[in-house]
């Protein structure tokens, strides 16, 4: 059925068409720009593969850092020789933590947070313990994985 009068003015029609098309055009452009500017939004790895030799002989009560994606992990050999792997990043504001061998605790210098030898937060602002990883030895390789992750090594 034909209307006697138009529902919108010419101006509204043209402006809507223009700005709508422009919006579509720009969103396409912006999308391309975003994909360029945000290359790989860093995902942490599920596991890392290291050389067993490099870590097995560190002295007791010491820590050896290893790369965990873009951050740091700490391979920690306690006094009794047992070994754990912790993420070396403070759970408060993500500063790197340091190991204090004399106190046998981990210290975060940013806001004076302390973690015990198992990574539990004991003093200061950190709200959670340091993330701990599972350690497995596979031949000559040391595999440090996130807890619960099934490690599948690529067939080299």
């Amino acid at each position, binding site marked *: 059925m034909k209307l006697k009068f138009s529902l919108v003015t010419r*101006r509204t029609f*043209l402006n809507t*068409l*223009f700005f709508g*098309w422009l919006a579509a055009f720009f969103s396409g452009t912006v999308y391309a720009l975003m994909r360029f500017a945000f290359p790989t939004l860093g995902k942490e790895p599920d596991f890392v593969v290291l050389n067993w030799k490099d870590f097995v002989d560190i002295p007791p009560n010491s820590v050896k850092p290893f790369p965990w994606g873009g951050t740091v992990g700490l391979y920690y050999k306690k006094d009794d020789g047992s070994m754990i792997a912790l993420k070396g990043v403070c759970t408060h504001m993500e500063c790197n933590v340091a190991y204090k061998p004399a106190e046998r605790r981990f210290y975060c210098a940013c806001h004076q947070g302390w973690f015990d030898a198992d990574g539990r937060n004991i003093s200061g602002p950190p709200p959670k313990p340091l993330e701990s990883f599972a350690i497995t030895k596979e031949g000559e390789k040391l595999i440090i994985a996130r807890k619960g992750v099934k490690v599948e090594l690529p067939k080299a």
Partner: protein
Amino acid sequence: MLTRHIQNHLKRLLNRTRLAAVAALLFWTTPLGAAAAEKIAVFPEVPYDGYIVYESLIVFWAAIIGLIVIIRMKLREIERTQALGADRQDKDAPLLE
């Protein structure tokens, strides 16, 4: 006699320093040769990706032409109203609330 002659020549040709020099030469020049021969792809190599790029170009042109058409419509409209003298706003016109 002749074999001894040849043996001496071979010995000289293949003596250790010479071999080491040749080996070093080959070792150091091969990667350079390989890098020069390797062409860096400045356009997506996989044909599927290449087609997507061309298709995007067509869509892009469609968008540009659409925008130009709309702008021309707006231009025609403003020229029409200007010809009528209807494009000026009366500053003291009362607003309909």
